């Protein structure tokens, strides 16, 4: 058998380690200090975003490209999963590649990308930020500077079985107590035997962070305060988490819901297994499908989320546009995002792709209101919506939330202990500076 000379191999390894290690010490640093106003160079650029599942982005780019033959924008389609998009953006930034100029980013990435110097600070006065929903603009800011422009937004809605609520003459609930009372009445109906009451997204993943934050906000609390300090040890946060924990204990929330992500929850709602369901607006069209895939088509309505003692508050979803620090032709990139995120395009995106716009004016458009019956409810939900924690180490923050909220709703930890641990971990994550 072939035997390598170990002495020589080890020698080579050590040598490689030493030489490699020396160069490693040099590559610290967090990038250049981004300042607005350094947008130079015109020419072709690339828009990087997740897979265009609607097939309409290219059409939009074609219109821009016809008007700007020397500043053409190419679409770089990334995988559909947000994790993989983020990974590609980060790889691109770490090799300082100019392959991606405009980045279509999830709203929760802004702090991390800005802090690492991967995206360029944007001139606030060149965007119609005043016409946009303030909560969406906040998602593009880091250290009170604008790093990303809101492109579309999203908020949770309470889907409810209108047919069943009508039978007990109930209005959609504004508070958790009302929801529970209505639920008890509906369950007494013979037609609703064995139906579950309420569900959201409670599996241990990003959806749980969203749902936990909503429970805390709907009880009047905050996960992270305006200074960026975690406040999940407050009585409001406790009331929020207790709503979920007691919901599972009392059967208000069905036992299976702890495995629900968006799609399993949607299937349950469409099969008529739920009276109330916290879901993103995309469920509207699918649950209304009359091809037999949904048993509740035409039988449900939407309302803003309920809260502890009044209307609740949703978490914000959506996408923002940013410019890569390492891009070429940044003048073109800036012009392009001004155009791409403008009100006309936002209207088209709603019309053809049901993407919720960030411009308040669009929500009062009567033609669109007719096409999307949930639009005015969505606006109400957006008005009180709150962004998820804007933390540089967002991955660690969301895991700390998921870990402890999940332990509480599965009964592995008491509510107080879970919140105390969450507070400690979040304090550590946000203070890591």
């Amino acid at each position, binding site marked *: 058998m072939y035997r390598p000379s170990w002495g020589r191999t080890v020698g080579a390894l050590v040598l490689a380690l030493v030489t490699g*290690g020396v160069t*490693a*010490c040099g590559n*610290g640093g967090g990038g250049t200090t981004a300042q607005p106003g350094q947008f130079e160079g015109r020419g072709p650029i690339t828009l990087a975003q997740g897979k265009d599942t609607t097939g309409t982005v290219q059409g939009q780019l074609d219109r821009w490209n016809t008007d700007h033959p020397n500043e053409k924008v190419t679409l770089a389609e990334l995988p559909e999963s947000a994790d993989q998009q983020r990974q590609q953006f980060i790889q691109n930034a770490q090799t300082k590649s100019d392959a991606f100029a405009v980045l279509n980013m999830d709203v929760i990435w802004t702090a991390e990308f800005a802090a690492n110097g991967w995206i360029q600070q944007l001139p606030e006065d060149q965007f119609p930020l005043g016409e946009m929903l303030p909560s969406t603009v906040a998602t593009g800011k880091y250290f009170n500077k604008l790093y990303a422009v809101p492109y579309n937004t999203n908020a949770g809605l309470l889907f409810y079985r209108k047919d069943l609520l009508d039978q007990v003459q109930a209005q959609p609930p504004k508070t958790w107590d009302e929801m529970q009372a209505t639920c008890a009445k509906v369950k007494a109906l013979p037609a609703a035997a064995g139906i579950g009451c309420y569900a959201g997204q409670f599996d241990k993943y990003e959806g749980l962070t969203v749902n936990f934050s909503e429970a805390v906000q709907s009880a009047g609390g905050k996960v992270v305060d305006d200074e960026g300090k975690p406040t999940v040890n407050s009585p409001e946060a406790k009331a929020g988490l207790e709503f979920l924990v007691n919901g599972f204990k009392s059967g208000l929330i069905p036992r299976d819901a*702890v495995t629900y992500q968006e799609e399993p929850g949607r299937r349950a709602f469409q099969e008529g297994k739920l009276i109330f369901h916290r879901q993103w607006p995309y469920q509207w069209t699918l649950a209304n499908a009359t091809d037999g895939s949904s048993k509740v088509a035409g039988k449900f309505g939407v309302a803003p989320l309920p809260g502890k003692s009044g209307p609740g508050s949703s978490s914000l979803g959506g996408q923002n546009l940013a410019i890569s620090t390492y891009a070429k032709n940044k003048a073109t990139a800036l012009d392009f995002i001004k155009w791409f995120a403008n009100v006309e395009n936002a209207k088209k995106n709603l019309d053809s792709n049901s993407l919720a716009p960030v411009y308040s004016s669009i929500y009062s458009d009567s033609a669109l209101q007719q096409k999307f019956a949930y639009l005015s409810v969505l606006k109400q939900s957006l008005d009180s919506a709150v962004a998820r924690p804007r933390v540089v180490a967002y991955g660690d923050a969301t895991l700390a939330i998921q870990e402890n909220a999940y332990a509480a709703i599965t009964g592995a930890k008491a509510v107080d202990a879970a919140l105390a641990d969450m507070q400690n971990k979040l304090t550590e994550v946000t203070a890591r500076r």
Partner: protein
Amino acid sequence: MSTETRARPPAAHRRPGRLGRAEPKASDRRRAGVGRLAAVLLSPTLITLGLVVGYPVVEALRLSLTVTDQHINQETGLIERTGQLGFDNYTGLFRGESGARFLNALWNTTSFALATGTLVTVLGVLMALVMHRAFRGRGLFRAAVLIPWAIPTAISALLWRWIFSTDGIANDILNTQILWTTEGFHAWLSVVIADTWKTAPFIGLLVLAGLQVIPAEVYEAAKVDGSSPWHTFWKITLPLVKPALVVAVLFRLLDLLRMFDLPFVLVGRGKRSVETLSMLAWDDMQNLRFGPAAAYAVVLFAYTAVVAYLFIRVLGADVVGRGMEGKR
């Protein structure tokens, strides 16, 4: 080269530098030329291996020894990082919260390897024994057994996710209400079941190949001597199929130790009951902690190397295809 050396006195090529004799000199030159040619011919492979295997390993080692210290500049909000060499990433594996997470992942990785490894070995051998029999519909059976192996892991994880969903087939058949994908032993078990289903055919296939080279005469002799089927299996089949079996199990174990996709897709990321070392390394990399991520990867690499070494030494797995030559 053999004929040439036999033609010459052996001393000739032990003293290559002897002057005044034309014949060895020419052969030396030829041999040196052959050596150089071999080196040239092998170099593309060696360079490729160096780039795709050697470099990442060395780079991972270097990264795992790079300790990054970072803080956020309170005025600009930008992260400032300084890197230096040190062992902190390794000591962090055994301290505090990250230590507990690491030990949990190490235990999961090991327990998956042991449990699934044992199950697939037993089932794989059984499958091979059945596939080896001559019976009607054998071709169909062989194809059916191989289907799980042909399905990509991520896809089979999705299939099993359906089976293990709350209103899925698993709960239906067992008449239970287990929430398989929630934290707990059941999540661990679901991964073991799915992986066994998927990879037992691999063992089965390799063992079948081993079974087919056992001469029929040996069995005839055993029959004549009145050996029971059970005895025949333990004294003849198993020892003769052992070289193939050991290699198959070794490959399976190495695969199991780096298990990632099945628990990730079937149960989900961040679930402690099924978090393996690879998932931990991936998670730290996702959160831009490349040093600790590389440390996990290096530990996993070392762990795998030790297991492979033990297998080769103790059970004599013949991985490089020495065949009978090694025993001479």
